[in-house]
């Protein structure tokens, strides 16, 4: 993980899992509650995304479904523990996870784009090669057959001459 520059706040990503006992409309205020919690700790929200209702890989407290909520924010590191504690106390949230997220600079994004283009071009090329190979493969076997026939004929001729001798 790259260290952020001094004076700049680190970037975090929070994924929270809201219990299925609430309806879609009831989830909204909970989401806002989480956002306001970050704002009250002098955080800056850069992205708030609702990932919707999803089936859980295993039941948590008897619930098989849950609402995922994703928030990205900049926050001073010492305030992170306050958010973590508050989230743990919220009974509406089944699970939450805060992860350090790397922020890409404009240069890195441009570089990634270039590489992505190269990769796309390479994939197209490979597909073509595979197609050509299969096409050539068919022809080659034909050629081989012809060659074999020719060889047989030549061999026969040689054998005949040998017999004559």
């Amino acid at each position, binding site marked *: 993980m790259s260290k952020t520059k001094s004076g700049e706040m680190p970037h975090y990503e929070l994924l929270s899992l809201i219990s299925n006992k609430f309806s879609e409309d009831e989830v909204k205020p909970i989401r806002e509650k989480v956002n306001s919690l970050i704002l009250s700790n002098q955080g800056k929200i850069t992205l708030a995304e609702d990932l919707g209702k999803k089936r859980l*890989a295993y039941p948590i407290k008897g619930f098989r479904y849950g609402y995922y909520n994703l928030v990205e924010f900049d926050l001073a590191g010492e305030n992170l523990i306050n958010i973590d504690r508050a989230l743990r106390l919220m009974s509406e949230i089944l699970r939450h996870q805060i992860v350090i997220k790397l922020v890409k600079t404009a240069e890195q994004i441009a570089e990634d784009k270039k590489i992505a283009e190269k990769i796309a071009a390479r994939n197209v090329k490979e597909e073509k090669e595979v197609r050509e190979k299969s096409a050539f493969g068919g022809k080659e076997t034909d050629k081989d057959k012809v060659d074999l026939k020719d060889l047989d004929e030549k061999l026969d001729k040689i054998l005949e001459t040998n017999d004559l001798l």
Partner: protein
Amino acid sequence: MEETIKKEKQCHFCLNNVKEIDYKEANLLRRFINSYGKILPKKRTGVCSKHQRKLAISIKRARVMAILPFTNK
């Protein structure tokens, strides 16, 4: 003849220039666990050591958030 020679597996993340593996991509991560939910060895998936370490962390994070199972009986 050429078909019999197996192509060496290459690291999926190196090929696609993935530097950080996102733990929220369940469909991608599912390719690297077996039907019991265990993390597959890199020998089998062809992932390089560098990305295998990151992959393992991502899978474990996904398990905590119930995106991937801890186990399937």
